[in-house]
């Protein structure tokens, strides 16, 4: 019984971090689908969400909701600047160049945050207290509920946007075939910019809602970004349910592994899963294989 309670506890916290990975995975997939770029700076958007909220809250003394909105807005602007300055000037860039540039952007953002706010780990207060709620012998924090709620809302929002609005459909058209999309009058450049806007906002939001649970600092983006990428890979780089499932599975496995095997190897578990999937099913867990295009 003791073990069962423990496992329930690990699964709950695993699902919560898994939701975060799912959101980050979605933000990876949104940019990838409209540009073919894996944005190595994605984790920095997540970090910025948390760090900027704490800054707005503690230094600017904004109320929580305004602080969150400000943080997401500023991160989005940074996403736009990044796209304008580092992605757009490159015509016919090879994947290699894009990898190097986005890595450059990620360490640049990380360095600037360290310069402005130092290296200290900071905590964001939980949105609605820390009184635990007892569920099936395990405890659930109010923040967990916030995470689940926001994740569900973002996923529904993304779904509505991509399936039922002109802009969303145009972005999907770009991901299927950029040239054809261009021919029917879609401004591909604007859609690329849009994808950075949405992706930065979703990433930042993920960073905000996880910050009360895990603390935040200038360097949390690397790990969160990589795990989000892992979730996206598991879902086959789609912006749909596959990525969400991937995130939840990853979060749960990681939490169980950390709890039952060793917490020191927690991050190694995620990367081991990442490698395994890249080696065995690079097209994702839920997709059929595609043949290589020449």
């Amino acid at each position: 019984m003791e073990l069962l309670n423990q496992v329930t506890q690990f699964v709950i916290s695993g699902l919560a971090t898994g939701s975060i990975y799912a959101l980050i995975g979605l933000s990876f997939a949104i940019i990838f689908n409209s540009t073919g770029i894996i944005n190595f700076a994605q984790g920095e958007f997540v970090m910025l969400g948390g760090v900027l909220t704490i800054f707005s809250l503690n230094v600017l003394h904004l109320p929580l909701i305004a602080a969150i909105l400000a943080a997401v807005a500023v991160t989005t602007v940074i996403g736009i600047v990044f796209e304008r300055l580092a992605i757009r000037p490159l015509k016919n860039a090879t994947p290699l160049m894009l990898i190097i540039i986005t890595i450059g952007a990620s360490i640049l953002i990380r360095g600037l945050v360290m310069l402005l706010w130092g290296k200290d780990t900071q905590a964001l207060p939980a949105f609605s207290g820390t009184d635990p709620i007892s569920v099936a012998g395990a405890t659930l924090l109010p923040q967990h509920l916030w995470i689940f709620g926001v994740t569900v809302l973002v996923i529904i929002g993304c779904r509505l946007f991509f399936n039922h609005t002109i802009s969303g459909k145009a972005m999907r058209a770009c991901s299927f075939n950029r040239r054809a999309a261009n021919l029917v009058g879609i401004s591909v450049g604007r859609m690329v910019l849009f994808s950075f806007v949405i992706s930065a906002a979703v990433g930042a939001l993920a960073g905000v809602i996880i910050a009360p649970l895990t603390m935040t600092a200038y360097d949390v983006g690397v790990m969160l970004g990589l795990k989000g990428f892992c979730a996206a890979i598991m879902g086959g780089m789609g912006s749909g349910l596959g990525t969400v499932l991937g995130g939840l599975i990853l979060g749960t496995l990681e939490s169980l592994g950390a709890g039952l095997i060793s917490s020191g190897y927690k991050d190694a578990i995620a990367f081991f899963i990442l490698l395994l999937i890249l080696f065995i099913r690079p097209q994702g867990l839920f997709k059929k294989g595609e043949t290589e295009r020449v």
Partner: protein
Amino acid sequence: MKSDRIKFLVFALVVLLVPLPLSGGYLTNVLIFVGINSVLALGLNLLLGYAGQISLGQAAFFGLGAYGSGVLTTTYGLNPWLAMIAVAVCVGLFAFAIGFPVLRLKGHYLAMATLGVGVIVNIAFNETVELTGGPSGLSGIPNLSIGSLTFDSDLKNYYLVWVFALGMILLSLNLVNSRFGRGLRAIHDSEIAARVMGVNARLMKVQVFTLSAVMSAIMGSLYCHVMTFISPNSFGFHFSVEILTMIVIGGLGSVYGSVLGALLLTLLPEMLRTFQDYDIIVYGLLLITMTIYLPGGLVEGIPALLRRLVPARKVREGSDA
């Protein structure tokens, strides 16, 4: 071919003479690390600049070399030279084994997979405390020695490291001008076309990956004997990115470019002491601006700049006459 040989001889001569006027001071110490970083950059450049395959886990192989030698010589009292060979062989086998699944991946996926390998290895350095000393590091590693000659001063270590480095530079120069090197460049341009032409792309990619890993591991062994202390922080993702920055600045696909990049990026933080941890801001800016404006690196950029200046002068002379 002959001019290549002369170029290398001049380079080697400069390398061997440089420390003499410095008389073993602080700069000599910095130049030891230029030598180590040059080979690390060169290893990655063979893989990335020539074969077009990225690796964000180079620091892991460097670290495996350092920890392998460190642990074998301190805890198990093995002869440092034997340890170095054993570690190089083991790291080579490890790279060869993971090379097949890893290098089947392309582009972003390859970058992520190599990064993953690097992070896992780094976590292992931190967590296997009994073997590696964990985050607090491993100390008391002996200096290398040949007979009664112990490499215990900066000047001696300079020559030790640079003899190895020159050897590997020469090897790389020969390699890139061989059939193997042409095969690598063919893979870079189009892997499918290369395979159609009879290049065994899959095997060659793994071979060059293994070579770069072994080069890094040997430098890791030297590093641990020069430093006599190592800790996991020196072998993390940050250092892998630093190696990448070196070759992007120096020049992708250029042997001497790797050395130039290593020289600049090792001297830069030393000269800008006030930067300390903030050097990553400079690296970030360099990676972005160099890739956008000077994708060939300084090795290509400087001659291009000179060429632009020289004909301009000729035109002016012509109009005067």
